[in-house]
């Protein structure tokens, strides 16, 4: 690395031969000793083994040449007699930095060799011109030694160059600080101020090689700005995460208290965990005898009054199953109040067939309890456990028949995600005008639907109207099924039982609020994406009891990756939907 500055000062230090530690180089009081910060900065000729960022430091010395060498004569004008030589410094324990005049290439090579031999940590050359002019750059022919730059490689230390006057001054000062403490300038004073007379007092060189400071100031500035930005982002992210955590906890609490219905609001598609499934009644069809029943709160009454109701149920079931082919829906018992409090007795919605596999349930009798084992959901629909359990556990928490949640009230999934919090807040933020929004949503949905359907059959908008058509068609279809298209559809009242109740209920709920609402409530133009989001969601939840697809999966599908990352960092952001 290039040198950025050269600093020279006077240091005192003990001889490592008798001192316990060597790292005790101390600057001598600068008012009574030499120090300098020569400018301009030294020119870097070679960077071999110069570590960026760490300063090169060492004691200044003049590398001796062999006694009879011609170069000694050439150097004589520049090298004072008493200059600090290697022999004037401790043999080991301290880094040393050589300084010498840049004479002929031959002499320079000798200096380099000498410094190599004497363990120079760096070499500072000066031009023997006694000039204050800055030295030429490192690629100047002045610095050519005619060996193809080989000297830069073979010398294991960096080489710098300084102007002649600076070099002369350094060598001169070095000659002053080469003897005992008492011999150096102000030597007497120094010993009086506590410098051990046995210590060395020598010139010490500190070459800054930049590193961090060598970066152009623009980059430093940019780095600082970047650092500040990162800090701000980190702090914001952290506080957002904390806030979001509190919101998750709050949402969990509100779900638990029943304030928020995740599924109905389309916030989260829930599934039923195994332990909840296990709590659902499992019993032999017809007999009402529990098969495996962990204790739940509501079974208190289940033990004693089973006899009469069981027989009642059986009688009903035997008739219904025997007459099944002709009338698929068993006679519904008129009053369910008798058995309502008791969970193990056929409910009003008792069905002869599992709606999932379409197999008939086989009723068991008290004598031969070999009947089908059925699972009853809280909505009193029953299925084969092997049919419904996996579905509830893996796909949906809603009864396949009536789409009512099979989860206990106040159930909250173990994991409450930030996305759920976001959706819930979104719903809540819209609640004041939710009704208006829903209406307009339905209308807007119908307008947009013609184009949307084609591209996206799953689109939520405008689905409500859809069912109205099939409901008429289903009636027509019944007629068609019996061979004549002109026959009037059977009255809806005759359609009872497992299809009838749910279908009729849905038809009613679906057909009444049809296209009459043309009133487009005045909508603030702000936040269109948020509004659109809420509209779709509202339409989706209106008129039916469940969200169409898992909102999590849906959101994961719609959210581009960069947005997911952004939401990971700033969990509060990204509330409105992109696109």
């Amino acid at each position, binding site marked *: 690395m290039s040198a950025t500055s050269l600093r020279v000062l006077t240091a005192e230090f003990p001889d490592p031969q008798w001192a316990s530690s060597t790292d005790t180089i101390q600057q001598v009081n600068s008012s009574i000793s030499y120090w300098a910060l020569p400018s301009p900065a030294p020119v870097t000729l070679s960077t071999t083994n110069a570590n960026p960022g760490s300063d090169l430091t060492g004691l200044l010395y003049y590398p001796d040449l062999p006694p009879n060498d011609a170069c000694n004569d050439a150097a004589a004008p520049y090298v004072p007699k008493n200059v600090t030589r290697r022999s004037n410094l401790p043999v080991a324990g301290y880094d040393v930095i050589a300084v010498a005049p840049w004479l002929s290439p031959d002499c320079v090579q000798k200096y380099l060799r000498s410094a190599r031999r004497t363990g120079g940590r760096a070499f500072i050359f000066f031009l023997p011109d006694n000039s204050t002019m800055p030295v030429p750059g490192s690629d100047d022919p002045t610095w050519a030694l005619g060996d193809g730059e080989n000297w830069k490689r073979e010398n294991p230390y960096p080489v710098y160059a300084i102007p002649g006057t600076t070099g002369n001054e350094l060598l001169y000062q070095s000659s002053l600080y080469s003897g005992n403490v008492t011999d150096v300038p102000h030597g007497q004073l120094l010993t009086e101020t506590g410098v051990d007379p046995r210590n060395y007092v020598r010139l010490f060189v500190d070459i800054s090689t930049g590193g961090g400071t060598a970066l152009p100031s623009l980059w430093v500035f940019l780095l600082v700005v970047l650092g500040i930005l990162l800090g701000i982002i980190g702090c914001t992210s952290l506080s957002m995460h904390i806030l979001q955590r509190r919101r998750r906890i709050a949402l969990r609490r509100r779900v638990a208290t029943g304030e928020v219905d995740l599924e109905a609001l389309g916030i989260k598609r829930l599934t039923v965990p195994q332990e909840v499934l296990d709590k659902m009644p499992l019993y032999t069809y017809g007999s009402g005898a529990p098969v495996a029943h962990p204790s739940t709160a509501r079974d208190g009454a289940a033990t004693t009054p089973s006899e009469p109701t069981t027989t009642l149920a059986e009688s009903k079931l035997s008739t219904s199953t025997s007459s099944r082919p002709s009338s698929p829906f068993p006679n519904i018992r008129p009053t369910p109040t008798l058995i309502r409090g008791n969970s193990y007795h056929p409910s009003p919605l008792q069905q002869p067939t599992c*709606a*999932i*596999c*379409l*197999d008939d349930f086989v009723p068991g009798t008290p004598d031969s309890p070999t009947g089908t084992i059925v699972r009853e959901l809280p909505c009193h629909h029953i299925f*084969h456990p*092997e*049919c419904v359990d996996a*579905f509830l556990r893996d*796909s*949906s928490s809603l009864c*396949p*028949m009536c*789409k009512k949640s099979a989860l206990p009230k106040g159930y909250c999934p173990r994991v409450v995600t930030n996305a759920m919090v976001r959706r819930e807040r979104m719903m809540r933020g819209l609640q004041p005008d939710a009704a208006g929004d829903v209406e307009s949503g339905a209308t807007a949905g119908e307008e947009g639907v*013609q*184009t949307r*359907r*084609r591209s996206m*059959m*799953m689109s939520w908008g405008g*689905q409500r*109207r*859809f*069912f*109205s*058509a*099939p*409901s008429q*068609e*289903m009636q*027509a*279809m*019944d007629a*068609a*099924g019996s*061979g004549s*298209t002109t026959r009037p559809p059977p009255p809806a009242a005759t359609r009872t039982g*497992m*299809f009838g109740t*749910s279908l009729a209920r849905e038809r009613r709920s679906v057909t009444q609020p049809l296209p009459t609402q043309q009133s487009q409530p005045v909508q603030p133009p702000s936040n269109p994406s948020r509004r659109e989001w809420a509209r779709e969601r509202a339409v*989706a939840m209106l008129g*039916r009891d*469940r*969200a*169409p*697809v898992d909102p999590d999966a849906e959101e994961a599908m719609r959210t581009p990756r960069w947005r997911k990352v952004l939401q990971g960092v700033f969990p509060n952001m990204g509330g409105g939907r992109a696109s």
Partner: protein
Amino acid sequence: MAANKRIMKELGEINTNPPPGCAIRLAKEDDINLWDVTMDGPQDSPYTGGKFHIQIVLPKEYPFKPPVLTFRTKIYHPNVTNDDKGAMCLGMLRADEWKPPNKIVDVLKLVRAVLAAPQPDDAVEAGIANEFKTDRKAFDKTAQDWVKKYAK
């Protein structure tokens, strides 16, 4: 698997007692999730005399997920998309309307009913729906032409 059992059961039922105007077979012998239906155009409709080829794909999750139904024969109908997909818009086939107790036979009956009585208000083809409402004669003619052209 429950789904397989159920599909086999439905297939058996539908083969012993096929819905009117429909012939059902498996598209491939070994794939019970792919049904081929040939449906006759209902009487008293512009589609009468036509034979419409409908493919039904039963998803893995059937009966929890609805079957996917596509018209392989081009048909001029407001409720069937007029592209190579031939998707039909039926309320009960939507993922959120579908219920496991619904059977394929119900779906087919519904399809036939919609052929007999198009639902222009729920159209996927707005242009056709508009023509159906405003110029019934022209609609009937085009529908019959298409039947002659594609559904023989």
